[in-house]
Every structure is written in structure tokens, then in C-alpha cells.
């Protein structure tokens, strides 16, 4: 049984404690609370560096100290506090850093509201458990044999065929009917690779539709996208050793993952609104009358400063888009402003929750919209790597990981 230490403030009073425990239970984990004394809480500043006005945050910090001093007490940590609490946001981030710096225990950081459900937490919790349970599998650096990966995403379904560490076929279709789209993407990849379905030794599945698709095609590996994508990213970007940061701006949500030796050490997943996702870029392309594949190149010619754009909410973002075009702004400036706005939100809301260490690898279909990695580079003041097959990252990660299950 994987033990997840819960360091939190406000969960019981937000009515979501049951949801946390349900999510943990679903992934075969148990929530634990490291024992601390009253003196540990009162003297928390000596060991952690700060004491705050809210006692439950001091308790969470004292528990973090206890875990760092006794790493055998927990296999993983979740740090959860109320959304919109500034005091808690500071401490949540500091607890994450503290555990990251002083131990090897993976940490998940999350801010909740009363609407947070077990389903919202499930993928995150699953990833956390995977990093603990399948450390050996995640350490795999080479793909062997003939395997396939399918990434059943919210917007698109991707598939790859890999043979002896090389991608030999790819398939990409919009997600309509989940099963049909998966079959189509898989068929396309098989066709390009010139191999028959029966020849494929194992299939790994990830993405939103992973359970449905995985069951349907009898996949050998059904895995959430956080561990799979980070594995695929470091594999394709040739950054399997040492630290890396993976940014995946998806069609519906975003992931920021700090990786150490190919294994996620901390991550966030979310997005306040579709305004911070690939969906907004699609909408911009449509409005500008260009294909999504052309939006990035157009953006590279533009300057975001010339357009007032804020896609914090997709409705207001669309309004800014319409207004800017009505004011006669140049399409290239609008395209870049849209890229900047999406990048800025990911930077503001998610990259603050993980350790950003180089190389920074951007993956997912949105990474191919050239303006987006450029905007991210400007915000981070760092070079951003977009590996080949960036849009197939989940499928590659799944094909790579499932090959590890072929042995023994």
C-alpha cells in the first residue's frame, strides 16, 4: 500500500476530505498524517524557516519537517490548501520546495475549492502513485521490440509505432468518438510503419480516454498522462539524465512537470479556463481565417505588445480577439498576442508550482504553434526545446514504457 502524506489546510472544512481519500483509495494508496508534537508546531520556524498566523499551516510545515527527517514515514506527499488563500499559497509552495530539496519523495501540490472532486484529483494521484510504484519501469530509457502507443486526448488522438528505439509510424486524428478515433489513429500509424496489428508486441495507452480505449484494445499498459508524457518528453528531447521541466499545453488542460532522471518529482495539472489552453489558439486561428498549423508562423512575424489581449477567461479572450480585429490590429500581432496570453497564464498559474530547471521541454500539439514556445522563452528568459514528434509525446511515452513490460 502506497502511503501518501497529506499536508493540508482547509480540506475538511471545504468538504473535500472524502474526495481526497476516495481518489487515494482508487489508486491503491492510503492517506497518512505524520505524527508531530505541539512543540514541533510551536518551534516550526527554527526548522522550516517561518511560522505563520494560521495554525493548520504551521501543522502542515511541522509535518513536512518530520517527513524530511524521517523519509520512511511516507512514499509520496500531497500539499493541498484552499484556492485564493495567499498565506496558504506561499506556504504550499515553500513546503513543496522544502520536501523537493531535502528528500526524494515526490510531491503533488494542489489548491482546491469546495467543488474539487475525486475525479479531478484522480489523474494527479495516479501519477503520484506511479512514480512511487513503478520507479523501475519509469527509469527505462530505451524502447525495445515492436510496440505501439495511443494517446487518447480530449481534442486529438495520437498513435505511434516504435521499433528498437525509433518511431516508425505515426497517426493523428481529431477525437470524436473515443474508440473510433483511437482505432483510426492506430490504423494510420500501423499503415505508415508498414506493420500489421498482430505483429505489435504490446500497446500502451494514455490520455483522457485511456481506460475505455485500453480495455477495448486489450492494452498492456494503461497509464495517466503525467508520467507517460514526461517520459516521452525526456526521451525525445534526449534529456533522460538529470533535471528537466516539461510543459504540456493541452486542448483542455495544461501540465507542468519537473522531472529528475526521467521521473516526475513534482507537477501541476490544471488551467483556470480554456483560455489558457490549445482551445484558445484554435479559436484564434479560426477567427483569423488561417489553419492552426499556420498560426505559429504568422505569430512569429507579430508583436504582442500591439494588441491588448487577456485570455484569462475564454469568453473575455474571444472578446479581446474580436475587439482587436475590429480596431484594425494586424493578424500577425493578434496571433502573437494570443500565444503570449496562453503562455503567460501557464507561466503565472502553473510554472510557479514546480521547480523550473533547464532544459525546458515543450510538448503536445500546441508546442508546434511556433509563437507559443517563443512566448514561453520570453517569459522564462530561458531557451525552450521542442523535440521532434512533440505532438506524439504521450503515444511515444506509452510505447516506450510498455516495452519495459515485455521483459520478464
Amino acid at each position, binding site marked *: 500500500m502506497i502511503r501518501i502524506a497529506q499536508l493540508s*489546510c*482547509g*480540506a*475538511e*472544512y*471545504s*468538504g*473535500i*476530505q*472524502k474526495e481526497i*481519500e476516495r481518489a487515494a483509495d482508487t489508486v491503491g494508496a492510503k492517506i497518512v498524517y505524520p505524527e508531530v508534537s*505541539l512543540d514541533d*508546531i*510551536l518551534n516550526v520556524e527554527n526548522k522550516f524557516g517561518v*511560522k*505563520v*498566523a*494560521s*495554525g*493548520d*499551516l*504551521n*501543522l502542515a510545515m511541522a509535518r513536512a519537517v518530520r517527513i524530511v527527517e524521517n523519509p520512511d514515514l511516507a512514499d509520496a506527499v500531497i500539499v493541498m*490548501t*484552499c*484556492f*485564493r*488563500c495567499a*498565506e*496558504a499559497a506561499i506556504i504550499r509552495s515553500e513546503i513543496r520546495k522544502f520536501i523537493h530539496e531535502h528528500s526524494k519523495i515526490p510531491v503533488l501540490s494542489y489548491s*482546491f*475549492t*469546495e*467543488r474539487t472532486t475525486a475525479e479531478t484529483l484522480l489523474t494527479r494521484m495516479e501519477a503520484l502513485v506511479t512514480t512511487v510504484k513503478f520507479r523501475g519501469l519509469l527509469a527505462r530509457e530505451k524502447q525495445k521490440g515492436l510496440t505501439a502507443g495511443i494517446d487518447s486526448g480530449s481534442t486529438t488522438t495520437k498513435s505511434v509505432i516504435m521499433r528498437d528505439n525509433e518511431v516508425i509510424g505515426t497517426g493523428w486524428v481529431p477525437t470524436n468518438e473515443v474508440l473510433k478515433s483511437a482505432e483510426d489513429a492506430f490504423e494510420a500509424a500501423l499503415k505508415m510503419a508498414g506493420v500489421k496489428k498482430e505483429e505489435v508486441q504490446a500497446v500502451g495507452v494514455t490520455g483522457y480516454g485511456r481506460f475505455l480505449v485500453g480495455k477495448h484494445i486489450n492494452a498492456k499498459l494503461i497509464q495517466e498522462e503525467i508520467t507517460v508524457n514526461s517520459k516521452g518528453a525526456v526521451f525525445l528531447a534526449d534529456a533522460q539524465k538529470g533535471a528537466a521541466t516539461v510543459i504540456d499545453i493541452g486542448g483542455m488542460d495544461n501540465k507542468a512537470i519537473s522531472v529528475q532522471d526521467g521521473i516526475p518529482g513534482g507537477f501541476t495539472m490544471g488551467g483556470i479556463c480554456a483560455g489558457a489552453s490549445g482551445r484558445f489558439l484554435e479559436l484564434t486561428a479560426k477567427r483569423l481565417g488561417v489553419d492552426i498549423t499556420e498560426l505559429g508562423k504568422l505569430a512569429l512575424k507579430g508583436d504582442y505588445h500591439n494588441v491588448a489581449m487577456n485570455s484569462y477567461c475564454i469568453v473575455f479572450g474571444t472578446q479581446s480577439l474580436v475587439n482587436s480585429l475590429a480596431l484594425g490590429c494586424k493578424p500577425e500581432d493578434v496571433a502573437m498576442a494570443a500565444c503570449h496570453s496562453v503562455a503567460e497564464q501557464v507561466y503565472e498559474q502553473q510554472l510557479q508550482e514546480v521547480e523550473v530547471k533547464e532544459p525546458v521541454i515543450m510538448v503536445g500539439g500546441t508546442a508546434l504553434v511556433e509563437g507559443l514556445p517563443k512566448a514561453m522563452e520570453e517569459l522564462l528568459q530561458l531557451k525552450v526545446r521542442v523535440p521532434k514528434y512533440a505532438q506524439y509525446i504521450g503515444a511515444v511515452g506509452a510505447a516506450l514504457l510498455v516495452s519495459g513490460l515485455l521483459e520478464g
Partner: protein
Amino acid sequence: MAKVIVYPPTSMILSDLVERMGHKALVVSESVRKLATANDIQSPPLNVTPEEPKKGLRYAAVDVPSGVRGRMALIGPLIEEAEAAIVVEDPGWLTGCAGCNRTNELVRLLIRTKGVPLLDLAYPTDDAEARVFVQKIKTFLEALK
């Protein structure tokens, strides 16, 4: 007998002194009991469901964290019921129902602005202060009779 809200609303010392001097102490455990011993436990451990933060909107706006509003759903009705109050300075070790300082600030504000008789104190640090502490509470409570 007066209904006296104590702050911290979880204080053993204050609620004990109020009750032994013949008054009714309003404490948060009463609100917890209503939820935690209900027939229908939907949301263990406290049985605070996502409905409580919504009830807390009576005391704090929607952009106030859910943990504050959930706690206010427990403490707010006690403040409404209070006929007098004893408030002790924050001692720096409040946890659980009193573990959120934003909630505690709002609780103190609502108690102070309610306009009921109020006694302000600090926890004693020695015997002499303890004598004064107990004496002040005694005098305050006697005046409520």
C-alpha cells in the same frame, strides 16, 4: 443565564469557566456534533459537505477561500446566537476549527461588531495573571446575570 461565545471557539478553559459560572458557552463543537452525528454521513470526517462553504456565503463572499466559508458555516450561527462574548488574544497555537487565521479574524470582527457585552483578555503566563484572568471572567459573567 446568558449565551456566551468564547474565542477561540474551541477553548476548553473559557468554555469551562463560562459553564461553571452558570452560563451557556457557545462552542464550535456543538456545530460539529450536529453534522458529525447526523444519520446521513456524506462527507467524513466532519460531514462538512460542499454545501457548508455555500452556507458560509452568508458571512464571506465567494472569492473568500472555501475553508474560511466552511468554518464560518460552523461558527457564524454561534456568533448570531451570542448574548455576550469573551475574546482571548490569539496565542499562536490554534489548530483545527480555529486553525485558519483568516477565519479567526472574521470571527473576531463579527463578535466585536455585534454590540454584545465583551471581555477582552490574554492567556495568563503566571499565577498572578491567572488570578486576574479568572477574576475578570467571574466579574464579567456575574454582571450578565
